[in-house]
């Protein structure tokens, strides 16, 4: 304040400029402080919890990862101390390689180990004061345990049933979305990759395997669905009002012989001579898996109707799930027709699961679960709760992905799916999925791939049909017809599941 007196000697102009300059500098410093706020507050979470963050990497190397448990408390993943004193991951069974992934000091992490890394490593706490004081805690913090909905027994069985074939099985509880099994074959040696002593060899082996075991087929594999997709066409038809239980097409028997003429192309299908000249209704068409009937139903729903139902089921976007999912598609999206169909031929083909339709096994399991759950699609869930080292349980709520169609329509479709497994004609294809004492609903698929080789074998379904507790999707690559490989596999799985129920 006394300096002002001295300043009085100067002419005012310079003093004023000095003040203005000071304000300009203050604004510049304020701008830098705002920049600090942007990175340290607004962007803090996504940067600091990114797997590439040095803190996450260091914690990966130093912190004690939480365990991963199955629905019955079996330990699926835990830690072992190596010769050098460093901890590394051990997994209960190789069948778990797809959902759990691996955590390796050399090769990073994958699967649930990557998706829930910050919880497993105990980086979850976001209270700034707690974090500032955390440095005075004892070293090597322990992460949260993950409690999952997986059933170790069912998971092991699913992988065993897939055997040497490539394929995937997704089984979930349609009421809650709890995933019971998420199998993908071939599996890989996740414990080998996690163990520093064998890490390099195990990873190289997995990477070089032509079966691509590192690809989680259950969530990332995209397949032509074949006739299993007819359930989506049925959902679209009922949801749009284009069809009902009594819908039939008079030209259907004739077209089975001559082919269905669409835009000058013939959609040919001749594989159920035993219905002869019978004009099929919805249930019968589903039971015998009539391509002509479904092509006509798809055309009646139209591209827009098919697209709307597919989108509501989760097509066209990643499915909200614990693991990253590939995007299922109805079309390539380039065509001029609603929904991106190129023409009615593509639409007719898509209606029975050919065309440009590509789906993930998880998506198809959700289609089955939607029908099983009265038209309400459950949100799939793998982790059911986080358990902190102190024992505090933070449950993950169940949720839904929304209502896809009304309960009566869902019941009608479920009834047709029961016929497809248990009906006189249905069991000619699908008898393998039957379980003594339990009514099974389902639909096979035999996805023609073009070119030579066996088709992909599909089955989707649920049981017990009256009050479903399990819905599933099975895909066996080059497994032949759906009835030959996927349906019996589903039957074995369901038998084991119900045998274990009290």
């Amino acid at each position, binding site marked *: 304040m006394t300096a002002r007196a001295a300043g009085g000697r100067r002419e005012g102009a310079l003093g004023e400029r*000095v003040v203005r300059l000071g304000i300009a500098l203050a604004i510049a*410093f304020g701008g830098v402080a705002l920049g600090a706020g942007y*990175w340290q507050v607004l962007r*803090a979470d996504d940067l600091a919890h990114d797997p590439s963050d040095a803190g996450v990497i260091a914690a990966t190397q130093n912190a004690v990862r939480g365990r991963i448990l199955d629905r019955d408390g079996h330990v699926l993943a835990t830690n072992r101390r190596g010769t050098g004193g460093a901890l590394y991951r051990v997994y209960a069974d190789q069948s778990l390689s797809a959902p759990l992934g691996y955590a390796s000091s050399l090769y990073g992490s994958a699967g649930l180990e990557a998706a829930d890394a910050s919880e497993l490593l105990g980086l979850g706490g976001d209270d700034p004061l707690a974090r500032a004081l955390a*440095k005075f805690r004892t070293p090597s913090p322990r992460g949260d345990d993950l409690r999952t909905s997986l059933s170790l027994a069912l998971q092991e069985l699913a992988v065993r049933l897939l055997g040497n074939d490539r394929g995937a099985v997704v089984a979930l509880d349609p009421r809650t979305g709890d995933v019971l099994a998420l199998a993908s074959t071939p599996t890989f040696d996740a414990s080998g990759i996690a163990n520093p002593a064998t890490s390099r060899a195990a990873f190289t082996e997995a990477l070089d395997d032509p079966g691509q075991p590192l690809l989680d087929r259950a969530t990332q594999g995209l397949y032509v669905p074949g006739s299993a997709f007819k359930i989506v066409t049925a959902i679209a038809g009922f949801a749009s009002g284009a069809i009902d239980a009594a819908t039939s097409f008079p030209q259907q028997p004739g077209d089975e012989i001559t082919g269905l003429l669409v835009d000058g192309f013939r959609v040919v299908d001749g594989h159920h001579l035993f219905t002869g000249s019978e004009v099929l209704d919805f249930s019968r068409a589903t039971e015998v898996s009539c391509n002509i009937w479904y092509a006509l139903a798809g055309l009646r729903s139209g591209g827009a109707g098919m697209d709307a139902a597919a989108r509501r089921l989760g097509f066209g976007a990643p499915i909200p799930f614990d693991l990253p999912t590939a995007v299922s598609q109805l079309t390539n999206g380039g065509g001029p027709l609603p929904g991106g169909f190129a023409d009615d031929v593509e639409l007719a083909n898509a209606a029975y699961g050919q065309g440009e339709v590509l789906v993930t096994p998880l998506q198809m399991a959700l289609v089955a679960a939607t029908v099983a759950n009265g038209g309400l699609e459950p949100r799939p869930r793998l982790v059911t709760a986080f358990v902190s080292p102190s024992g505090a349980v933070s449950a993950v709520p169940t949720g839904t992905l929304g209502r896809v169609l009304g309960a009566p329509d869902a019941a009608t479709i479920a009834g047709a799916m029961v016929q497809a497994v248990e009906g006189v004609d249905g069991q000619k294809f699908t008898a393998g999925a039957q379980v003594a004492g339990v009514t099974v609903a389902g639909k096979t698929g035999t996805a023609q791939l073009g070119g030579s080789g066996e088709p992909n074998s599909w089955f989707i379904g649920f049981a017990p049909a009256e009050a479903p507790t399990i819905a599933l999707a099975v895909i066996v690559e080059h497994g032949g017809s759906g009835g030959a490989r996927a349906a019996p596999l589903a039957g074995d799985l369901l038998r084991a599941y119900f045998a274990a129920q009290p």
Partner: protein
Amino acid sequence: MTQVDLPGFPRPVARPRELGLLLAMAGCLVLGSLSLGSTQAGGLALAQPAELAIYLGALAAMHLALVVAGRRVDEVLLPVVGLLGGIGLLLAERLPQDLVVQRVGPLTLGLASLQLIWLVLAFAVGAAAAIAVRSDRWLRLYKYTWAAFGLGLLLLTFVFGRDVNGSRLTLDVGPVSWQPSELLKVILVVFFAAYLAENRVQLADARVRVAGPLTLPPAPYLLPAALMLALALGIVVIQRDLGAALLFFSVFLCLFYLASGSKVDVVIGIVLFVAGFIVLALVFAHVRERVANWLDPWADPLGAGYQTIQALHAFARGGLLGTGLGAGLPMVDGHLPIPAVQTDFPLAALGEELGMAGVVAILACYLVVVARGLRIAAGAADDVRALLAAGLALVIGVQAIIIAGGNLKLIPLTGITLPFISYGGSSLLVNGLIVGLLLALSDRGPAPPAAPRRARRVRQDRS
């Protein structure tokens, strides 16, 4: 003014405000050392108590020297700069000591020891300048000599210097490497201040109409300054020291505004700079790379963008309150996450360990230095002293903004130091000199005789 009571024994003048602030600052550093020591030792402990004692002792010695010298100079600068230097020392103690190792005779000194030595030397230089510089005549009369000396120094570096990280900035003299562009900052400010003050009236009033309302100072007055600037910029650009170029230009523009009062000149200057920068980007690949890396470091996350990305992650890890001293900067495979953290990214390290709160506090300290410098300028006896004080303070303030902005990806990253905090001898010594000169310029002359009425009071008279 500058007539001085020559030697003899000056009357000591108590500096209670400085003492109080120094004590508060010492308290902060002791707490910081305690926080760091506790993290490192796992129990209650001070980090490197001997180094802390030496550092605080050096500050106390400088305070005492100013008291004994009896000059009535600014009492806020030393504690603020002392706090910044202390934070830098804590950071140097916290980082791995083998980041910088120098052999001096039988001794092998690590990062913190070297930083402490440079800090103590810097305060010695500052104290010497604050006490010894009584006249600005030797600065103002020989402005062209100084300018020539500065440019000569740069040329010397260019011819005999050593390339470090693609920039030819360092000159090896004996065991020590110097960065002459650090000293050039002071020399240029001296030249600008003397030159602009001398031509101030002409720059402001005898303006030549260019087009419409656009006027410029007459060419004979503008040309030498522009030439001087272009020369300095040119050499600096050839040496690839873009940070220094930005710093010189910004400070020059600020001083030009102070002298001429013309906002139009400032706008023209900024436009010229932006245009010049675009030309540079078109001509020089390394400038282009730097801009591209600034716009999207994630384009090359493991190469050119690595350092920037790691720094941003460090800021993010710090969050609002930070991880606490010593608890951040996770080592991955035995390496610090940010390369060259001690020279180019100390703010990122501090941002992680002290949080946004710490970053804002550090920025506020620089703003205080700028405010004190501008205050000294406003109260200066004449134009030269005013422009000199403003220019010296701006060198510190603008440099802090440039490197902090670079660390936070607000502007392209340039390899200049964060004043008083970054490791580096040349930088610390020159910044010490700047503080010393600012203190000298703030001298309010001998205390006027006490009024008889007040003389009876017990309290020390400080007018």
